[in-house]
């Protein structure tokens, strides 16, 4: 989508015949990860269309995992090929950057997606219904909850295998999001991964009303925020006369001096710039889930099917922070002194707000939602550092965090009672007595969230705080430390509940998952501990990947 091409067309049209339009030049190899996933997504739509119902599940899972793995392989290949560092470049005629951060984040997203897809595909947790295996998704999302139609669908053993193509589209969008190198691409990518997520939120099998409510809220607020984003883009466009990061950056730096007097009102008008920037920022902070743009998070996390929640919590955050980093470091480095104080404020309220409100939560999924808000705050601290160390620390943190989150939500899917997942904290009492292993695993994740040493959570937090302190944001570190002290309280509360309180008679049972979820959880634990004990290798990766191409 080369706007510049079109532009040249417009300006030269008078003298040159139209058939001289140069075809846009696309670097397919560099874009292969995205292309692979998109192709897979389209294919899986076709699967939905043509493969008979019985075969779909297997086909979809196979296709998705295969595609994601292939895409990941492609990312690794590109990174190995030096596209992350030396050969970093801007592909697709300025639309997409292929550089260290992009590849690192895409890799992270893909890995997270793979394990998430495993949880999507889990069908062992609930007892078979009418002899049909069931997963976490409604038999027929369109059917009214509790209606005859739904019953029929259940009896017929329908399953919403559409979640796979939806997920694939979302993933494709997420892959583009952090790599987007012009605001339009940014916007489109945002929508591409948001819309499928809205739908994914709506298709829970149990508690469908809540699921739909979550979808509505997410959708309306999401659309609202993307409207802000878009208006911000418009203003920035008005400011710089282009949406490409490079151009805007140049204008911001004052590199472009030849201002057409006719445009004096707009071109290079800082008010446009600042307002536009603020609105774009608002859009991104919404996705990140930063206070005060966080309020959708708890409701959506609670209502959405837990596998989807895990997927959102991990992948969306990665993608959104990637985009945020690129925006701040590539487009607005000249504006650092304008955005830093603002971000300081956001980071502080986010850290504290998330931690404080979490204390009084009674639902495990909401609790994790608030914890994710607090973590967004910590990440922002790293973003604010405005140094390469800051970038790499954020990258590392995202990697570490996403696996902990997915693992944690995967564990949540296991604890079930008659009404599906037993997410109310009181139900978790004495879990440690009934099934020590699961409880222990969940405890590990909680400790990682709390940032206890020897877990990935600590390495990440340390990296981020270190970067922040280095970048002169010592005060942020202190606030961060305080809020993690507060946060520690509610993670510990859950541990107390699981291990030190007597099991309830009507307590939930812990379902024995299939290899898929087991794999997810194991991956989560392994990554958590490895990144906690020996993070150096991954820190190196993050360091190498910490340079944006301009």
């Amino acid at each position, binding site marked *: 989508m080369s706007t510049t091409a079109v532009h040249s067309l417009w300006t030269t049209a008078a003298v040159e015949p139209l058939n001289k339009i140069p075809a846009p030049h696309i670097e397919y190899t560099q874009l292969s990860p995205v292309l692979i996933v998109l192709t897979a997504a389209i294919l899986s739509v076709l699967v939905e269309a043509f493969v008979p119902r019985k075969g779909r599940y297997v086909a979809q899972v196979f296709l998705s995992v295969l595609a994601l793995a292939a895409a990941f392989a492609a990312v690794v290949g590109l990174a190995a090929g030096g596209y992350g560092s030396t050969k970093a470049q801007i592909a697709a005629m300025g639309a997409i950057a292929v550089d260290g951060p992009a590849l690192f984040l895409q890799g992270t997203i893909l890995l997270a997606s793979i394990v998430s897809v495993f949880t999507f595909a889990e069908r062992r947790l609930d007892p078979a219904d009418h002899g049909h295996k069931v997963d976490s998704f409604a038999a027929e999302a369109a059917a009214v909850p509790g209606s005859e139609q739904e019953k029929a669908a259940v009896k017929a053993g329908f399953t919403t295998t559409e979640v796979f193509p939806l997920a694939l589209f979302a993933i494709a969008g997420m892959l583009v999001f952090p790599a987007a190198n012009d605001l339009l691409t940014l916007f489109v990518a945002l929508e591409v991964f948001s819309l499928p997520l809205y739908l994914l939120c709506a298709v829970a099998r149990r508690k469908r009303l809540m699921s739909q409510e979550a979808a509505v809220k997410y959708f309306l607020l999401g659309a609202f925020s993307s409207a802000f984003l878009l208006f911000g883009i418009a203003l920035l466009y008005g400011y710089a006369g282009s949406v490409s990061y490079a151009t805007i950056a140049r204008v911001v730096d004052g590199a472009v001096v030849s201002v057409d007097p006719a445009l004096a009102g707009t071109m290079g008008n800082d008010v446009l710039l600042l307002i536009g920037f603020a609105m774009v920022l608002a859009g991104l902070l919404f996705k990140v889930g930063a206070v005060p743009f966080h309020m959708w998070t708890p409701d959506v996390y609670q209502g959405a099917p837990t596998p989807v929640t895990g997927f959102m919590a991990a992948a969306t955050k990665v993608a959104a922070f990637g985009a945020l980093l690129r925006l701040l470091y590539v487009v607005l480095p000249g504006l650092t002194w304008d955005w830093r104080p603002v971000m300081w404020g956001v980071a502080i309220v986010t850290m504290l707000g998330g931690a404080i409100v979490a204390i009084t939560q009674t639902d495990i999924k909401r609790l994790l939602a608030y914890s994710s808000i607090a973590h967004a705050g910590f990440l922002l601290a790293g973003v604010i550092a405005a140094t390469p160390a800051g970038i790499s620390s954020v990258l590392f943190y995202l990697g570490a965090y996403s696996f902990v989150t997915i693992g944690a939500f995967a564990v949540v899917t296991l604890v079930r009672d008659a009404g599906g997942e037993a997410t109310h904290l009181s139900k978790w009492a004495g879990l440690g007595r009934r099934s*020590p292993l699961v409880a222990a695993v969940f405890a590990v994740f909680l400790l990682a969230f709390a940032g206890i040493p*020897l877990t990935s959570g600590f390495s990440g937090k340390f990296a981020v*705080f270190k970067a922040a302190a280095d970048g002169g944001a*010592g005060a942020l570190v202190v606030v961060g430390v305080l809020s993690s002290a507060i946060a*520690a309280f509610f993670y510990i*509360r859950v541990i*107390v509940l699981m291990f030190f309180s007597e099991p309830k008679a009507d307590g939930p049972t812990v379902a024995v998952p299939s290899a898929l979820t087991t794999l997810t959880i194991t991956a989560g634990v392994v990554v958590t501990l490895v990144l906690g004990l020996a993070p150096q290798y991954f820190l190196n990766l993050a360091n190498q990947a910490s340079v944006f191409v301009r």
Partner: protein
Amino acid sequence: MSFPLLTLTAAVPAAGAILTAAVPAARRTAAKWLALLVSLATLVLAAVVFVRFEPGGDRYQLTENHAWIKDFGVRYELGVDGIGVALIALTALLIPFIILAGWHDADPLETKSPRWRPTQGFFALILMVEAMVILSFEATDVFLFYVLFEAMLIPMYFLIGGFGDRAHSGSDENAAAQRSYAAVKFLLYNLVGGLIMLAAVIGLYVVAGNFSLTEIAAARADGSLDMATNTERLLFLGFFFAFAVKAPLWPLHTWLPNAMGEATAPVAVLITAVVDKVGTFAMLRFCLGLFPEASKWATPAIIVLALISIVYGALLAVGQRDIKRLVAYASISHFGFIILGIFAMTTQGQSGATLYMVNHGISTAALMLVAGFLISRRGSRLIADYGGVQKVAPVLAGTFLIGGLATLSLPGLAPFVSEFLVLVGTYARYPVAGIIATTGIVLAALYVLVLYQRTMTGPVKEEVRGLPDLRVRELAVVVPLIAVLIFLGVFPKPLTDIVNPAVQHTMSDVQQKDPQPTVPNVEAAQ
């Protein structure tokens, strides 16, 4: 790189912990024996360290140094000085007795679920704590130390909250509630302390660029690294706060009585005799070692707090109605002495403080474990529920008395040596403080003797009648401890010999000299 002896001292218990945890539910006794053997093996290793260490040699010996997290400037850097050796010895010495004393503490009352294995967990956790504590005594890398300092909270937390004292007043739910309250209080206090320290650790990195104690000290010495006064003070406070919570120093002490009261006696010993020592040890090694100027700046305030701890702890001990809480407050008083000795900045004070850590560990263990045996017999922690035990179980009473006498630091028992050194060392620089601290010895006598009188003497209470005297296992716990107390009381030289050089180094860290006697004396020299 030579043979990694120090790593081994920590690796053995760590491995042992994992193995113990892996023992199947039915084979409970096997797990116990395994844990005991592992702890004994650790003791042997500690003994080897003790022997291999040359008092006259380098400051840090048996060093190991491997890259760990380059990005954070973190290295896996180990090394022991005399102080570390002494405390490693203490830890390794106490753990077997703690395990032995807690032999039945974690036997499940009824089998909750086939996969629920409290016993294995209990002993595994104890070994895990041992591993972390020992390693933290060996770490010469600030970050490595911090990691252990924080990480050891988790097993401790489970030990406190998961295996409460079965002798409690009130219903089980109530007890469970109090227990988890104590555990959470313990964790939060120490976690907050630790997090504040984390901020300081990061600050240190920003200032110094690495975490190696030796390198930073060297850099400060040759002036290549000089901290701004305020920076140094802030960092010092960050570190000191964490250590003061752990130690614990008034007014950050309130978690200790809860924790020690609710935990089983062996765990209580583990807390006060072993884990808390990390705090005081760290003051000596990190606060003084990294921030000499700031330490001197803060000394007056800290000495005041220490004095308050001494008197306040003792007075509250007198006021307690619960045996274990009484011992806890007594410990607070003793930690006051230790901190006083450290910040007196004299050789006697600091050597005394180090010995004090060791001796207090052993004496408290003796007292607390016997108290635990008594409590487990009668099923109550309230002093008022006892009386005339001495007539029923003379040996128990006798050992209890010896433990008590050690606590009030009677000459001839180890604590006297350290306490007197601390007092002398303090007096030499701060006479008033020295004198105030001396009142502690009267108060100590008060709470110990009151406790002994109320529980052991007088007419035999009805419920106490027929309590069995100490069993073989219990004697095996108490007798060696008492033997050590007496030995170190009359012949502390082996300890002082390794501690003194280390203290010399610390003194040179803070560029302090002992105040010289006002009357120069010829005979004093020899």
